[in-house]
């Protein structure tokens, strides 16, 4: 795996240099080394000399498409995983950027490692991380532990069947084999086993930790409304405090607004400082949309978003 990462990283750098020197793009948005183990960080590269700061590893977890709105004035070279590319396609359907503004550097994704899960597997602070093949080595002051990489992947990555970007101007690395590690999102599976009452309780408990920092919203490339419904003062849909009803309201609508738009990247869940589970909501909506309308976000660049269209034969047995 390490070798793959290294090879991909080299290709990203090479491509970035080429794009910048030929002035095909003004800026490359990619990942750079984090200052902490288990973390990478979004970086913005504007000159060839800086391009060697670009990296690729198991912690490139952000969906960089979320930065596009800030860069509307520039030609952008964007490093995308499969899910990020799907967001870009979805955004493109919603006419969020100019046709020739983007250059996608597609990376067939090796699935990202869930840093929190890794942290919870050991006692004490992790100070160093290494990766060898399908093993992750974590070291702290008084421990060293080897973990099986596959056991520590993000849930949204475990179910992913679009690891290779559906659309990219260049692909760095070979297309990945598109089969899921698990068939159903583990959190959706667990949730669906519960009774309705248990489900509601679980949902309220998760949402109950919300501090309304809106990191889930800001991390999501599809959350770009000029005025989010939570911020509207007239009409005021919900209050801004921590009343369970208001918090539930926010989480239902934030998720539901992603119907047919969510790429399943999991950026929302990864962004949450309170570790609220969120992808069991969006992933379920994705499943529904696939089942009901045969639609998957950002896979077919020409398909209309399902909630902006219809089929005369759509299901309606629930309508009196």
């Amino acid at each position: 795996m390490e070798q793959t990462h290294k090879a991909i990283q080299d290709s990203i750098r090479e491509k970035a240099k080429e794009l910048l020197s030929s002035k095909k793009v003004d800026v490359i948005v990619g990942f750079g080394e984090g200052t902490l183990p288990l973390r990478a960080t979004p970086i913005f590269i504007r000159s060839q000399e800086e391009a060697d700061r670009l990296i690729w590893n198991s912690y490139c977890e952000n969906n960089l498409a979320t930065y596009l709105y800030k860069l509307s004035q520039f030609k952008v070279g964007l490093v995308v995983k499969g899910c990020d590319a799907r967001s870009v396609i979805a955004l493109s359907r919603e006419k969020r950027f100019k046709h020739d503004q983007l250059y996608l550097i597609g990376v067939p994704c090796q699935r990202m490692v869930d840093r929190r899960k890794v942290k919870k597997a050991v006692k004490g602070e992790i100070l160093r991380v290494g990766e060898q093949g399908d093993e992750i080595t974590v070291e702290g002051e008084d421990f060293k532990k080897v973990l099986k990489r596959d056991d520590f992947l993000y849930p949204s990555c475990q179910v992913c069947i679009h690891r290779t970007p559906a659309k990219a101007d260049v692909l760095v690395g070979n297309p990945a084999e598109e089969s899921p590690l698990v068939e159903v999102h583990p959190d959706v599976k667990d949730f669906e086993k519960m009774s309705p009452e248990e489900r509601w309780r679980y949902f309220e408990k998760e949402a109950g930790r919300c501090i309304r920092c809106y990191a889930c919203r800001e991390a999501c490339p599809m959350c770009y409304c000029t005025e989010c419904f939570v911020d509207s003062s007239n009409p005021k849909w919900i209050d801004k405090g921590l009343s369970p009803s208001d918090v539930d309201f926010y989480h239902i609508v934030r998720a539901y607004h992603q119907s047919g738009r969510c790429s399943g990247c999991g950026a929302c869940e990864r962004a949450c400082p309170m570790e609220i589970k969120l992808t069991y909501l969006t992933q379920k909506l994705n499943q529904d949309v696939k089942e009901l309308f045969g639609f998957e976000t950002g896979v077919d660049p020409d398909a209309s978003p399902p909630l902006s269209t219809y089929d005369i034969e759509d299901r309606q047995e629930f309508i009196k």
Partner: protein
Amino acid sequence: MPFLQSLMDEYDLFAPAQLAEGVSVYKKIDQTEEVDLSISNAQKPAKEIFFPQSETMFRYEKAGKESRITSTEEIKRNRILLGARPCDIQAFSLIDHVFAGKEYTDTYYVNKRKATTIIGMGCDHPLSTCFCSSLNGGPFQREGSDLFLIDLGESYLVELLTEKGMAFQKNKFFEEANEKEISLAKGVEGKAAEKIKAAIPVEGIEKRLDQMMESPYWDRVQEKCLGCRVCTYLCPTCHCFDIMDEARTNKGRRVRNWDSCLSSLYSQETSGHNPRPTNRERTRQRLMHKFNYFPKNFDRIACVGCGRCTLYCPAHFDIRQTIKEIQEGGDK
């Protein structure tokens, strides 16, 4: 936990507790089992105890043209904050400046503060992101605590530091510490101090920033910021809030909720004008407030080095790095 129970019999007890695996806050304790003193750096800082994220300021009821307002500022039962670490406690002394104030006293904050005895606790496992020592703090700093606990494994060494602390002198759960225990505590303290390796150069940062208001550096700083509120809400010194009414027909309440300078709405005026229209101005405001404006007003930097903003930023923004870059003159 008879000691905790005895505290709860007399006080409202606030302490760190886990909400989910790896996620903790300071909260009012209903059952002693909730208390988890091993949590050294809870996601949400202890400021919540005095400055809750969402707080009713008063309730009102309207009848015809008349209305009646009922205040919620009074604290009916004394409180104990148990197990807060020195960084969070140091932060109180910073936001005290704001809420106690010279001209106006924020009764909600001050009432809670006065009614609370703080039992601080030595932080024996500082993280690599901690840099309290660079900001006049330290993992065993006592300032601000009324009592101070040091974890000796089987027992705690308790130091009674203030008048409020001395009230516990006769507590039946406390015994006189012996030499061995005292020296053991010193060992724990020394070990923790060694652990904080990060020396963050804050010296002179206020002056440096005086020159940087229009620096292109802020364009760089803002780049990866998503504009969420994690760093401000989880910061023990951030204290901005919004005031809103929550109405239901004839009744309702006025509420204050935490607010964040990183939100575009924060400074959005009704006219449509926004003095801080982009992330550039907003990230600048956050850092300026901590390292320039606050020191100008109160002679202290509004950062205690707890590292939360760095740990929890979804884009992995590292304030330690930013401070260094500022000190090096910005855009490097």
